């Protein structure tokens, strides 16, 4: 342990100097990277109103910068803020300095290098295209190394703590560390084909389910659980009062982490994902209302008797508003998970409103509250200006509300106009641009709201820097009683594998097996599962009140037992939802005429698809036609599950700033795509799509295509050896065909250009045959 000189010991007491330098480092990183992430967000918001703002430059284009914005806000702003809060509160709650200065530094600087890596790759089209998991394989490895360093340091500190019990904040941190490791590794399993390119091991529906299991739980376990831990530490601290109900926090914690992990499929309602997974996602999302609001109320009620402080203390103002935004976002999330609400809201700006409700209101305000609390203490001085912090609060609140309300209206307008029909049953707004025009003023309003939030953030940076300048970096010191001796009571084994867990596992197994017989039985199984929870609770309660031992009190003193239980709790949902898709045999679908219904992409189409991924087309276009009348009329037949079975990665998308592209190949010819990519307004006047002129100049290395086909084959795509050997020649032949076709229509293109490959891919979309054993889906 490299903490020499920071800890002095006597027989019973130990004097500790906390490692607050790492807290200062993460705080600075959060506010500065956060500003970058927010400014990129404002820039791309403006690009939606003024698409020419990309100046014809690839790395300034909306679709390339949007992943940078989301990753910067999630991993740089919130990530660094979360680490600052975890390091500060963990040391104080455990009454111990972090176990290793070295690991703390590796974590701090390693994380910043990962963020720098993201900033240097995403704008240049180096991406996996999976939302919030866009980083390519080499950066994923770096993330894992840094996360492991963090985990070792954290659990090592638990082992050397001087406080017997783990406070509720620590439970949330444990769940974050375990679950993010699990999610990140599984979702990013990939086969590298070059230094900067890889293909994920999952494909199509399987990939979609894995991605949204990750994506939803990145929100849950990166943006929510650690911030709840911070809430449970900093609100009592700032209010000077203990948490309202410690018992409620126990229910909040276990219910939240167990239920959250199941809710991912609500991102895929009405897609080609099997119905059982969609229903499971919706059901568990609705259940989330209860623990989420339980936690919110526990946070707010902690202020009982201290509400008068909110008037004058900016820290509490931000915390109260942040927790209130959490309540709003966690009400809205389950609401959007109801299938009929999702039918209206999904793919629209309503989702953007929901996301920013949480990101700006919950994460942004909790971050601001924590920084206003921390920085004066970390620098041994008072906050430079309370009035400026108050102004930040009001300008930020107004900015968020303006943003969210504008996007609510835009989203609902979008959803209603997409489905609006004329009296004779046709689409009332068949022209996409007509819909876009309606929401343009709302996009402008959103930019104003975002701009106000950023103005508040800049005020905070100024305020914090003046505070730092007035003080001097100070590390907290404390003398505490040394914790000696083993914890009394039953062994870890007996605690973890006692009757409650056995009953729970048997109950879950039974519920799962029932699901194998019918959906009705699966739902009944869910009811049974809840009954199991009740029985387990009674068993635990009896064990406690019978005087033998207080079960939860004991596991709070056993980090190992606690961590095992958390792991079991979060693994359950993932296994039940993901396992069927992973173990199912992928049968090559056959059409009525005996040919392969879904042929793997040709060499040119595969390269075109990689360009589609690299340019970030999925950011604005879905490839998933839902089974609604309006969508069938607008885009064609609903998407089928086998159509994306060779897609590594899937491209179903989550937002339609532009129309769905699943069957675009049936709609337009090569010339239309050519003109549209170079100047979108030449084919779609008033479109807000950016131009992509560099695609006509940039070239594809066809020799590399062979390697890509080989990689695809090793992932299960049925390419023959002949197809792989002749990939380069086949690429050139298909490219020449497109070039000739364009030439016949008066357009000039280079066969080796990215534009031709992309056109090849777009022309292919929607041209699969219907398998012989596929029943036509009902259209709603």
């Amino acid at each position, binding site marked *: 342990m490299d903490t020499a000189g920071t800890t002095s010991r006597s027989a019973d007491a130990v004097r500790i100097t906390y490692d607050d330098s790492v807290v200062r480092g993460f705080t600075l990183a959060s506010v500065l990277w956060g500003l970058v992430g927010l400014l990129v967000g404002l820039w791309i918001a403006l690009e939606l109103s003024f698409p020419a703002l990309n100046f014809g430059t690839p790395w300034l284009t909306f679709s390339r910068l949007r992943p940078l914005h989301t990753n910067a806000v999630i991993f740089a702003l919130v990530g660094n803020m979360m680490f600052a809060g975890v390091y500060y509160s963990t040391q104080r709650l455990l009454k111990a300095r972090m176990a290793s200065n070295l690991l703390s530094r590796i974590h701090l600087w390693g994380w910043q290098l990962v963020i720098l890596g993201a900033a240097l790759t995403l704008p240049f089209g180096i991406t996996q295209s999976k939302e919030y998991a866009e980083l390519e394989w080499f950066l994923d490895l770096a993330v894992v190394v840094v996360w492991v360093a963090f985990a070792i340091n954290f659990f090592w500190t638990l082992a050397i703590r001087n406080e017997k019990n783990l406070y509720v904040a620590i439970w949330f941190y444990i769940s974050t560390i375990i679950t993010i490791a699990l999610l990140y590794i599984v979702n990013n399993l990939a086969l590298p084909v070059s230094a900067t390119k890889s293909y994920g091991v999952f494909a199509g529906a399987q990939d979609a389910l894995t991605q949204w299991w990750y994506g939803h739980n990145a929100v849950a376990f990166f943006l929510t659980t650690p911030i709840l831990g911070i809430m449970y530490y900093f609100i009592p601290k700032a209010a000077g*009062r*203990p948490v309202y109900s*410690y*018992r409620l926090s126990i229910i909040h914690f276990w219910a939240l982490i167990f239920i959250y992990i199941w809710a991912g499929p609500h991102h895929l309602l009405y897609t080609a994902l099997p119905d059982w997974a969609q229903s499971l996602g919706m059901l568990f999302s609705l259940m989330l209302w*209860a623990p989420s609001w339980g936690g919110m109320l526990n946070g707010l009620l902690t202020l009982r008797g201290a509400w008068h402080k909110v008037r004058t203390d900016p820290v509490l103002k931000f915390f109260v508003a942040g927790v209130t935004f959490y309540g709003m976002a966690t009400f809205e999330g389950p609401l959007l998970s109801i299938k009929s609400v999702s039918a209206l809201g999904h793919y629209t700006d309503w989702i953007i409103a929901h996301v920013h409700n949480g990101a700006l209101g919950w994460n942004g305000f909790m971050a601001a509250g924590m920084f206003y609390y921390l920085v004066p203490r970390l620098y041994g001085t008072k906050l430079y200006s309370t009035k400026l912090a108050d102004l930040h609060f009001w300008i930020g609140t107004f900015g968020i509300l303006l943003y969210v309300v504008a996007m609510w209206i835009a989203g609902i307008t979008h959803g209603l106009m997409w489905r609006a029909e004329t009296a004779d049953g046709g689409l009332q707004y068949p022209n996409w641009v007509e819909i876009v025009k309606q929401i343009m003023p709302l996009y402008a309003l959103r930019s104003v709201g975002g701009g106000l939030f950023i103005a508040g953030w800049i005020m905070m940076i100024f305020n914090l820097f003046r505070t730092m300048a007035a003080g001097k970096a100070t590390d*907290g010191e404390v003398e505490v009683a040394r914790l000696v001796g083993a914890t009394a009571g039953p062994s870890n084994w007996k605690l973890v594998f006692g009757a409650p867990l056995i009953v729970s596992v048997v109950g879950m197994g039974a519920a799962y097996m029932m699901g194998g017989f019918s*959906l009705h039985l699966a*739902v009944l199984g869910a009811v049974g599962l809840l009954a199991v929870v009740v029985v387990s609770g009674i068993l635990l309660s009896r064990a406690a009140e019978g005087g033998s031992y207080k079960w939860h009190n004991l596991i*709070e003193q056993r980090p190992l037992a606690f961590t095992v239980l958390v792991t079991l709790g979060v693994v359950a949902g993932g296994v039940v939802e993901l396992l069927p898709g992973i173990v199912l045999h992928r049968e090559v679908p056959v059409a009525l005429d005996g040919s392969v219904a879904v042929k793997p992409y040709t060499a040119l189409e595969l390269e075109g698809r990689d360009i589609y991924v690299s340019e970030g087309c999925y950011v604005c276009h879905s490839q998933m036609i839902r089974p609604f009348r309006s969508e069938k009329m607008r885009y064609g037949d609903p998407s089928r599950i086998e159509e994306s079975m060779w897609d590594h990665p899937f491209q179903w998308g989550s937002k339609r700033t532009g129309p769905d592209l699943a069957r675009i190949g049936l709609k337009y010819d090569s010339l239309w795509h050519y003109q549209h990519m170079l100047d979108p307004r030449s084919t779609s006047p008033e479109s807000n799509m950016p131009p992509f002129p560099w695609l006509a100049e940039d070239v594809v290395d066809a020799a590399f295509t062979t390697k890509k086909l080989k990689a695809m084959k090793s992932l299960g795509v049925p390419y023959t050896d002949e197809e792989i050997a002749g990939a380069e020649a086949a690429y050139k032949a298909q490219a020449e065909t497109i070039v000739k076709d364009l030439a016949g229509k008066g357009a000039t293109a280079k066969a080796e250009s990215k534009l031709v490959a992309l056109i090849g891919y777009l022309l292919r979309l929607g041209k699969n045959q219907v398998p012989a054993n596929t029943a036509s889906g009902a259209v709603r």
Partner: protein
Amino acid sequence: MWRELFVNNPVTTLAVAALVFFIAVFAGAVVWVMSRRRGGHYAHMASLPLEGDDGSQDHSNLDRRGRGGQQR
């Protein structure tokens, strides 16, 4: 009877029933938690964040009338 239930109930009914059951269980647990006053049991753990950096207990957890909160 069970067969009747499966055959005649659309899946949505059972899903709603499962949800209502869950909410009832959760609400029951919360009421149980809030109704039993055993403040001393969790008082130590609940007050962990209130300990100052110097190891002292922060006694500012009193309201304007000088009352401390009842730990639930």
